[in-house]
């Protein structure tokens, strides 16, 4: 990836919400932008890193990214950080005091909720943070608004001296639309002003600042009543007036083109008086909000009668096909049977690990072990919970594998006393929040075997760099973490730290057996890169010699998607036991020769392919690096 690229001039552009936010952050003259990758927000910083004139970085976690942005704001620079919804939980410690200090240079926090949960562990509603932290929340409804509201957010932040939250959802981040853009302005930082009463938040300084936080909130409340970001669309069908924010505005306009709509752009603090006036002009009000009944509750508390989650789902997106039947029922109308064909039952196609993924060997080995509890974490390796391995027992939050493993170890009773506790975590997750947990394990004498899967990438979000790769967001060389030394520094004995090749199954199996027997913390670090990044070197591919395959199916247990069953059979053993047989072939054009499937193949039927590779199906393009 080039460090910078020629920035397209102001134009009519086809941009995703993430792209539009990045463009506006750049145009706003922002000097510092930081993030930790997280779907659906990742692309904002990826795109920003290609612009020139500002510092961009992957931070080790969201809290650090927010603190970096705050520091830049303190010196008077415009600053930005982006994160997914759960990232703001991590960053909230900084947020909750930043709102007491207030900000200097404009500071915008983009937080992307995964409404519909395409790639997250929960569906929390980030709009709550606006109420909790007393900061304004802006909610764009499409790419054009994502662009213009980002610019508005900087202006509002500087006027109110408050951080501003830009609440996005998957259906904003990953939707492309036409956007009219502008040019960058340069904003020279005013400089840091030493003022302990402003920036040193000890009780004596913080207490006198609390009223200013509420004054800012009042100013924002007054602004919400008059800003053009909140507006009304008139309609002739006044039976139901809709109150919407974010992408639901477009869904409501699509489904009910004749209905009056109140559209919230600056949705926190809510413009309750404007909403009251709107409610008086329609027969009934329906609040359409993803996901919690937040506005609905606030409107009801203000004495504005409305419907909301009594007729709409509290979970998932409120797309037109969800809204239409709900509104029909509310109006007492009959919901017609759909005319289109009903959904067809087709096998599930869950995400899989890639061909030759270094995690395959780890999970194959774990799946062969008995009496283990495997505490998991967040990343590609969470897929180890699926077939065929079924070798991951928990997944909660970033870095949680460490603490939950220790808690299991300390809390277990007789029924679990002979079980081994193993924690599995990836390199980037370890540095995000995992290493503190490992420190807790060593400090409190836990008996946990940690598998640290170092694939030199933030794999699940697209292979971004991290402190373990020795490269920054621009791909340029920088300091590189030595995981073995880091674990030693965190208190793991040197002899309990092993660095292994995850493609060598016997070595991995032996190490796991030995380390789980020893009753003290140990760390097994695997050292092979993600197959989707440029560190990865493919090797000579394999094929199956058909006449030697006995159909034992051992290779299938590795879980590589390049292995396909060609036919099934059954045999009755001498013992009378019926055994299923699965004869296989390898999709040679997809195989990159990791050799994992060769190892459990007793009849040695898996051999290197001829130089002329056969291409048999579209599978071959499935895991080609972008």
């Amino acid at each position, binding site marked *: 990836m080039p460090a910078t690229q020629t920035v397209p001039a102001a134009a009519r552009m086809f941009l995703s919400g993430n792209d539009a936010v990045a463009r506006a952050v750049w145009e706003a003259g922002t000097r510092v932008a930081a993030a930790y990758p997280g779907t659906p927000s990742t692309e904002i910083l990826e795109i920003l890193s290609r612009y020139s004139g500002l510092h961009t970085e992957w931070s080790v976690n969201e809290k650090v990214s927010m603190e970096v942005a705050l520091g830049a704001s303190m010196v008077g620079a415009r600053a930005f950080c982006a994160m997914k919804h759960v990232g703001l939980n991590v960053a909230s410690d900084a947020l909750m005091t930043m709102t007491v200090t207030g900000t200097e240079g404009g500071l915008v926090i983009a937080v992307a909720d995964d409404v519909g949960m395409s790639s997250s562990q929960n569906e929390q509603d980030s709009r709550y943070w606006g109420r909790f932290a007393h900061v304004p929340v802006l909610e764009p409804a499409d790419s054009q608004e994502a662009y213009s509201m980002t610019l508005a957010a900087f202006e509002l932040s500087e006027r109110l001296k408050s951080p501003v939250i830009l609440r996005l959802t998957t259906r904003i981040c990953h939707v492309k639309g036409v956007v009219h853009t502008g040019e960058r302005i340069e904003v020279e930082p005013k400089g840091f002003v030493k003022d302990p009463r402003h920036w040193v938040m000890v009780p004596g300084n913080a207490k006198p600042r609390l009223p200013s936080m509420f004054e800012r909130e009042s100013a924002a409340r007054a602004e919400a009543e008059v800003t053009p970001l909140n507006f009304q669309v008139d309609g002739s069908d006044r039976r139901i007036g809709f109150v919407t924010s974010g*992408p639901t505005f477009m869904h409501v306009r699509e489904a009910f*083109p004749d209905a009056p709509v109140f559209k919230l752009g600056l949705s926190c603090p809510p413009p309750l008086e404007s909403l009251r006036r709107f409610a008086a002009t329609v027969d009934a009000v329906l609040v359409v909000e993803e996901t919690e009944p937040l506005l609905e509750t606030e409107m009801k508390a203000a004495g504005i009668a409305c419907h909301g989650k009594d007729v709409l789902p509290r979970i998932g997106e409120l*797309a037109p096909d969800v809204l239409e039947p709900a509104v029909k029922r509310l109006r007492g109308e009959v919901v017609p049977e759909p005319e289109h064909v009903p959904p067809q039952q087709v*096998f599930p196609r869950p995400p899989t690990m890639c061909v030759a993924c270094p995690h395959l060997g780890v999970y194959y080995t774990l799946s062969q072990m008995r009496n283990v509890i495997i505490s998991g974490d967040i990343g590609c390796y969470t897929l180890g919970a699926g077939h065929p391995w079924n070798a991951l027992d928990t997944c909660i939050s970033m870095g949680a594998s460490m603490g939950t493993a220790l808690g299991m170890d300390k809390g277990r009773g007789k029924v679990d006393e002979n079980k081994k506790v193993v924690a599995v975590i990836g390199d980037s997750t370890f540095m995000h929040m995992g290493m503190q947990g490992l420190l807790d394990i060593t400090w409190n004498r836990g008996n946990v075997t940690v598998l640290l899967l170092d694939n030199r990438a933030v794999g699940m979000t697209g292979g971004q760099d991290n402190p373990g790769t020795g490269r920054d967001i621009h791909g340029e060389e920088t300091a590189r973490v030595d995981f073995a030394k880091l674990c030693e520094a965190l208190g793991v004995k040197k002899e309990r730290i092993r660095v292994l090749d995850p493609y060598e199954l016997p070595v991995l199996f032996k190490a796991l057996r030995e380390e789980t027997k020893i009753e003290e913390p140990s760390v097994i670090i695997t050292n092979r890169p993600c197959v989707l990044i440029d560190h990865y070197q493919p090797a000579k591919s394999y094929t199956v010699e058909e006449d030697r395959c006995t159909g034992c199916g051992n290779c299938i247990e590795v879980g590589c998607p390049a292995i396909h069953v060609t036919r099934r059979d059954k045999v009755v053993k001498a013992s009378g036991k019926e055994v299923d047989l699965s004869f296989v072939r390898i999709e040679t054009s997809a195989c990159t020769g990791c050799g994992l499937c060769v190892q459990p193949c007793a009849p040695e039927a898996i051999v290197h392919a001829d130089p002329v590779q056969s291409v048999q199906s*579209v599978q*071959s393009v499935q895991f080609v690096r972008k």
Partner: protein
Amino acid sequence: MSKITNILVCGVGGQGVMTATEILAEAAISLGFDVKKTEVAGMSQRGGVVTSHLRFGDVVLSPQIAPGEADLLIGFESAEALRWSHMLRPDGVALVNSGRIVPPVVNLGLFDYPEDPVAQMRALGLTVHAFDASSLAIQLGNIRLGNTVMLGACADRLPFPAEALRDAVLARFGTRKPQLVDANRGAFEAGRRAVAGEALAATES
């Protein structure tokens, strides 16, 4: 409200579903339409299900196509086309790559791959044009041409001239990989011919 065209593209992570939809969008933009495009692709790079919604017309509001509202369903994989067939309007058209990508859960024997997804779609009363775009791409020299073949296949079923889409395909390769322009031009026309031939055979039989 003026007519909006709804195109749903579906397939498996890594097949180029999103790129193909992007090119369709670029063609629509070049003709001055308002366009919105959205994906549902959580962890799609990992071999999961991918769908991409494309809507264009005078003014597009919601980016999502509702079930039963797609004018055109472009299936990059046959079981995926079947999975999303409820998105098609009763009078819509499905263009399907009859090539298969069998997932690990089927190889493990946990689920069955449908015997003939295209026949199943036709039995539902849907208009389906199917051909093996994967094999055609391999014949043309590179499996990765499959996605240009599929774009060629839909080119004569759009509310704008096929040339606009062809130009968008070639413009993309012209700037990124000029050496692939001729191969893609060939793949595009091969896709067009394949679906025309298939449609003709279907009328004759």
